[in-house]
């Protein structure tokens, strides 16, 4: 079977994709494909019109996700996704904007934009595919690489403590924050749906497998299955964690929805109403 035939086997989600871009460039067993699938299921369930939406990717494997989805897309610059999103949302507040960012894109080079978008409650959905490393550049240590992991730039193990980006998002002011994992597609879809439905800064961290780099260097195996199982075994539902001791949850990722509240969304740094200023424009000169 030729590649295009392989991808046109009647999958109901294909209508949302740029089919001429297939086959995609993700490695076999990569989690990015599962994220695409869960996202499109959420789009289908919500009946969203992709033609009126903007998808944003920075640079990286994850950043390629919106390129495969049939909507307007901004792509190709590392770490500035939320800066782009801010420009679009402030000028056209009714446009739905969804960002796909890698852990490096979101939390390393883009970390400052992340906390400020959260603080402002920018009305954007921020999907972070946390594959625990800089994948596209070949598997270097990233801000969420687990302590002690061997990567291409931490050959003796990482001595950098990782971020808990969900805690960071909550503290900085995000109004919807959830963590899920690729091996739970139903939950992934639900959280993405909730995030897309949310008015305000919605953050979904997806723990995902990069067998090619993180699997091989940190776990010593390029097996997607082994890595998926490793991720699974390192997660605990947030609801169950409440009843567990600190020893039992040590080194585990809590999975679930951490916050879901309504707050005014960002409209600009200063919003004018005629009564705000009585100078009649004189001081503006």
């Amino acid at each position, binding site marked *: 079977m030729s590649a295009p035939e392989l991808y046109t086997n009647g999958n109901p989600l294909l209508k949302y994709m740029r089919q*001429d*871009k297939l086959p995609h460039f993700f490695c076999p067993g990569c989690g990015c494909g599962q994220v695409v699938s869960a996202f499109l299921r959420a789009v289908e369930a919500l009946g969203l019109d*992709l*033609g*009126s*939406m*903007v998808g944003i990717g920075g640079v990286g494997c994850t950043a390629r996700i919106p*390129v495969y989805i*049939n*909507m*307007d*897309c*901004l*792509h*190709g*610059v590392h770490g*500035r996704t*939320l*800066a*782009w*999103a*801010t*420009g*679009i949302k*402030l*000028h*056209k507040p009714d*446009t739905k904007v969804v960002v796909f960012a890698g852990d490096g894109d979101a939390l390393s080079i883009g970390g*400052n*934009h992340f906390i*400020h978008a959260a603080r402002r409650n920018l009305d954007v959905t921020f999907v972070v595919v946390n594959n625990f490393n800089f994948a596209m550049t070949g598997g270097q240590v990233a801000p969420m690489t687990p302590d002690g992991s061997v990567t291409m730039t931490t050959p003796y193990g990482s001595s950098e403590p990782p971020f808990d980006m969900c805690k960071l998002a909550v503290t900085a002011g995000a109004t919807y924050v959830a963590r899920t994992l690729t091996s739970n597609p139903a939950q992934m879809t639900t959280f993405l749906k909730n995030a897309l439905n949310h008015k305000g800064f919605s953050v979904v961290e997806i723990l995902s497998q990069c067998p090619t780099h993180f699997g091989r260097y940190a776990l010593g195996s390029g097996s997607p299955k082994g890595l998926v199982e490793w991720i699974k075994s390192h997660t605990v539902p947030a609801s169950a964690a409440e009843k567990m001791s600190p020893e039992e949850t040590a080194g585990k990722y809590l999975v679930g929805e951490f916050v879901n509240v309504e707050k005014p969304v960002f*409209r*600009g*740094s*200063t*919003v*004018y109403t*005629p009564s705000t*200023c009585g*100078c*009649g*424009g004189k*001081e*503006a*000169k």
Partner: protein
Amino acid sequence: MGLEDRVLTGVHFMQGNYAAVEGAIAAGCDFFAGYPITPANEVSEGMARRLPAVGGVFFQGEDELCSIYAISAASLAGAKAMTATASAGYDYMQEGIEYAVAVEAPIVVVDVMRCRGENFATQSDIMQVRWAAAGDHEMIVLAPSTVQETFDFTVRAFNLAEEYRTPVVVVSEMSLALMRERLEIPAASAIPVVNRKRTAKSPADYLPFHADSEYGVPDFAELGTGYRVIHSINPHDERGDIEWEPHAFDRLYKRITGKVRENRTKISTVQRFGLDDADIALVAFGSEVRPALDAMEMAREKGIRAGVMKLDAPWPFPEEAIRDLASNVGAVVTVEMNMGKYAGEVERAVCGKCRTARATKNLGTPHTPDEILSVIEEVRA
């Protein structure tokens, strides 16, 4: 005249930075993002007060990177967008300018040059505004020399950005930006406003990066209106698809550089003073035009036939104007407030057709007319 009036028609005594604000608003600017930096702050502050009152958005980004990317994306969403910064901030904006060039997003950047980390007058970033962004590109850079021109050139910057779908820089510097002068703002009906050409095609027929001619400008489709365009900094074909074939590179880079370069005589206008009979021509841009004109008068009083060629737009380089000049005078003197940067370009175009000299300094103040006169006298001797 109220805060809600887009055009503040009338005579004002206004600061250079505020003139940039009023020029932008008169040109239709409806989105501004910037990060505080002296001596560009009055542009942001003026925008913060004026823009929301005329229905636009003011955004203070968390840094220059955020600001430049926010305006590029707002532009793709249909806004007429601007930022303002000063030299060190421009450093951070380079990649964002590269992005705007690549996806052909019209934006305006006001760069108020300052000496390395300090607020003194300088033109030391005249090469930075031309070359800073990575990748093959041409830049349009306008250099006002008065407060009036700061207004006029900011209007023109928006119009050129819209016409050519490319970033345009208005390069000012500390002394001009903070100076107050007479400014006359014309009636709104007398201010030419250009809007980018929007596509009339349906999404099915639309090619976002196709132009009708080799050096043409593609028609625009706004984000979120069903056209489903990929705006990637990566090399892309006419459809916007990321494409790594040499033919795609060739067409893209030829067109995005050519659309500016091939129109340079239209864009890079010059003004001639006393050049009809001049033996020595001063070439200057921005605030250095002011002492150059004074030096010309002083030289003429001494019987030296001096003239001035004022460059409204140092970039794209006005190749033909300088070449012509070199054939008609005995010497060309480049006047600039730096250690000698633009002079190299001028001398390249002069190409030995006449003598050349430089009046260059970077001491935190513009040249005095006397300093320029002494270079004129040396050249004549």
